């Protein structure tokens, strides 16, 4: 337990110390909340916007942050060195999960407080939906992060993960309504984790209905991505 807490704490400290990580996880979602919230650009309501930003935030931590950190830990031999300690791989994975979960809760709390106080956001909360969003939004994207970080060079993981962040930002139903995108893009987007996750959070905050395809897509990601990662992950670059 002490090892788990110690690794999670070190991981958190280092994550919060990385400028680009704070930019993607906190500043961009918060900046979008203010910008879109104040301008009302594209006719987006605050009720639609906030759950979209929840989805973006979760993905920025569970996918981008995790992929980049793990890729570089692998490159610098941190994972190898931890492999020569009494810490088990399971403990290491749980510590990472704990660190990601803490960041996610901070992200959602920050967005929630700002949205409620500045924009009078008063969601109709389905607690089960929020928990499902946190879990499904974390497991699948984290698996994808490990899939990339466990095989690609750290620099390639960095570029690809950041690139995908902006893809999700643009077509992930985060704040750009589907009407502005072509049918093909929407169809593709609905198969990636971001758009279904945004849909799930909208349902969880009373801003829409959830479809079966949302659950199916997120569940498939949550099973397939970690499974693929566990088969292909290499502890050393």
């Amino acid at each position, binding site marked *: 337990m002490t*090892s788990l*807490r*110690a690794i999670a704490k070190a991981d958190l400290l280092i994550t919060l110390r990385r400028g680009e990580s704070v930019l993607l996880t906190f500043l961009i979602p918060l900046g979008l909340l203010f910008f879109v919230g104040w301008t009302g650009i594209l006719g987006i309501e605050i009720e639609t916007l906030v759950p979209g930003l929840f989805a973006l935030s979760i993905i920025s931590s569970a996918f981008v942050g995790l992929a980049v950190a793990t890729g570089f830990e692998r490159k*610098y031999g941190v994972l190898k060195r931890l492999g020569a300690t*009494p810490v088990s791989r399971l403990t290491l994975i749980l510590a990472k999960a704990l660190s990601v979960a803490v960041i996610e809760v901070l992200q959602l709390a920050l967005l929630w407080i700002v949205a409620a106080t500045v924009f009078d956001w008063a969601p109709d909360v389905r607690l089960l939906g929020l928990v499902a969003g946190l879990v499904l939004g974390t497991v699948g994207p984290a698996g994808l992060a490990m899939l990339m970080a466990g095989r690609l060079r750290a620099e390639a993981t960095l570029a690809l993960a950041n690139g995908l962040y902006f893809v999700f930002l643009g077509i992930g139903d985060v704040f750009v309504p589907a009407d502005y995108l072509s049918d093909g893009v929407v169809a593709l987007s609905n198969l990636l984790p971001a758009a279904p996750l945004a849909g799930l959070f909208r349902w969880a905050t009373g801003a829409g209905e959830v479809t079966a395809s949302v659950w199916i897509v997120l569940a498939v990601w949550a099973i397939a991505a970690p499974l693929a990662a566990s088969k292909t992950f290499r502890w050393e670059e």
Partner: protein
Amino acid sequence: MSAIVIEQLEKRYGGFTAVDGLSLEVEVGETYALLGPNGAGKTTTIEILEGLRPRSAGSVSVLGLDPGTHKEDLHRRIGVMLQEGGLYPGARVVEMLELFASFHAEPRDVDGLLALVGLTEHRRAIYRKLSGGQKQRLSLAIALVGRPELVFLDEPTAGMDPVARRTTWEIIEALQSEGVTMVLTTHYMEEAERLADRVGIVNRGRLLAEGTPDELTAGGGELRLKATAPFDTRALGTHIGAPVRALGHAAAIVDVEASPEIIAAVAAWAAAHAVHLTEVRVGAAGLEEVFLEIAGDDDA
């Protein structure tokens, strides 16, 4: 009692054989140095012993445990210093030490360790900003934090300046006096001669020679020659009536008890054949010469 027993260890990567039938034992309390050129299989061997790499064949016992199957038990009792890296670039020195201390039931005192390796004033420094030698010393401190019975040091002083190197040697000698068993790899002959109870010379994944530094360097009274250019060792041998072995580039050993007559005969032959000798020495090889002699002077 043996801390480590390796029998017929093999490690293959595809078609490449990194370790090729290596056998050796390390006694409890002993310091054993693996000496060899780059790519000799030193790091691969050490990482198999540390449980970081699976072996292809052979048997290995470390503190009575198989590192392939009893990793956690083993890792509670050993200290590991990797050849490079292994720490979070964005973490502070003291954070790393405290993190690794948390993995052990009775860790050493973090402040005491920082003082021991001379990093007290760098305790808040970010790892990325440390010099190479400082990184190595932190890595050494982390290897020691769990009060290990057995420590693996893979090139512990690589990249250190002479002062830091001596400090590190003193730390290692203090551990020796506490009875800690150590396996280290090094390129520095001086390091192996000073620290090791026994030295194993490896090349191409094989153990070529093994012994105490004294045993390995006891050359008897043989005659060692160096010249400005390669020369015909066979012709020299015929002339003086004694076996002459070529040793690297433009050097040779005359394998008989050196006598004034032999030295005179060598000098006469050299003068007659325009061979300019730069060194004629009797016996007492350094470990470096022994190493070159055994492993060859190419980085194969």
